């Protein structure tokens, strides 16, 4: 149940005093409450859980994690070849 999905903020507005954004997940766009991520702006990716953005996706960290896994893949290929 604790699933959160990354989506991109397309635009923001105020509804009943709360900051709400239109967030795009692949081909689907839904509104998400942005009160818990005051630092997130249009164009940022946020993790959305039950209609609430709970964190701003750290794009640099995401790239770094992926890169480290990819480098490990390359190393693996080389080690595999050496054996």
């Amino acid at each position: 149940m604790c699933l959160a999905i990354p989506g991109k903020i397309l635009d923001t507005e105020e509804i009943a005093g709360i900051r709400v954004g239109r967030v795009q997940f692949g081909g689907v766009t839904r509104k998400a409450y942005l009160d818990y991520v005051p630092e997130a702006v249009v164009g940022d990716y946020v993790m959305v859980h039950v209609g609430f953005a709970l964190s701003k996706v750290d794009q640099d960290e995401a790239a770094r994690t992926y890169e480290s896994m990819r480098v490990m893949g390359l190393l693996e290929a080389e080690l595999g070849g050496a054996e």
Partner: protein
Amino acid sequence: MKFLDEYRDPKLAQTLVADIRRHVTRPWVLMEICGGQTHTLMRYGIDNLLPPEVELVHGPGCPVCVTPLEMIDKAVEIASRPDVIFVSYGDMLRVPGSARDLFQVKAAGGDVRIAYSPMDAVDLARKNPDRKVVFFAVGFETTAPPNAMAVWQAKREGLTNFSLLVSHVLVPPAIRLLLEQPRNRVQGFIAPGHVCTVMGYSEYEELAERYHVPFVVGGFEPLDLLEAIRMLVAQLEEGRFEVENQYVRSVTRVGNEAARQRMFEVFEIADRKWRGIGEIGQSGYRLREEYADFMPSACSTSRPRAPRSRRSASRRWSCRACKNPWIALCSALGARPTTRWARRWYRARARARRTIATGVTTSSRPHCRRLNHGHRTQYGMSLAAHLHRSRAARPRLRRQT
């Protein structure tokens, strides 16, 4: 989708598995705490890819499964009232109470609605001022800030027809309970990434320090989980017990301060009963005194109704997304489950593991194998095996079936 698809790359998954295989030298028992992580492990068959040394035990982190029977009964009772619109996350509707579940209430004419977000329930309360809207607030720390926001907003708007049936549970007390069991087998934990998105991971540092077990905060995609398992195995092999963060793209050590602030404005920590486990002290949230107006009236007055039978009262239950918390606890402690279906589940799992390790398909029941009825349905024996048993003229067994 960005930040999802790249973490499902099969080639990288193989690399990670190979790396785990290369580094593991001894058997290790790991637990993924969150039901969402269990779901990914099962869906992508990750548990089958791992070397036999790495055993994954599924944790009690599914709020749907651990919501106690009494709470479901309360929900059923409230939802049956004619003046109530009962709003819930879809997962909760199938959970059996002692007599009925919420789907049956809906079928019998009760106004039970499924919501995507707690704010949908607030919206319903705004649009239906003449009816009471009750929202079933279940979940771990991840779901608590959204639910807290719903109550906070209702109070701000002066909505008097909105209330919250709260059954919130917390992760660290359950882990502490497990770690304090003398027969605990779990040696390392994958901490729940989205809970830590809100709470940060300093709570787990205390647990790691005190019980000398490593934690890795893990994400929910296959590569996230494999990477978390790799990091855990590395810590265990090196004899370290630290808290590491694999899910850096969402989790920071301090978590989400704004969300926690709103959450503690509305909720306070309280004792909670967990279905299949029992009461765990200080393991959940309840509404603060200032928000007492937002408790549904039945909550404070009604006593839980006596269950119809002992069987239904003791009925353990598990949603399709994850494994039963009680079984999880049994397997974490190395205890033998006592109910018939749990024993079957246990045996089937052991058999699957043997099959993967040895490459030979075996059946735990020689008479089934003899008749080539090794494959049995999920819920027990196949019809053919049943027939074989009756034909074998074993009166004691026949009476049982």
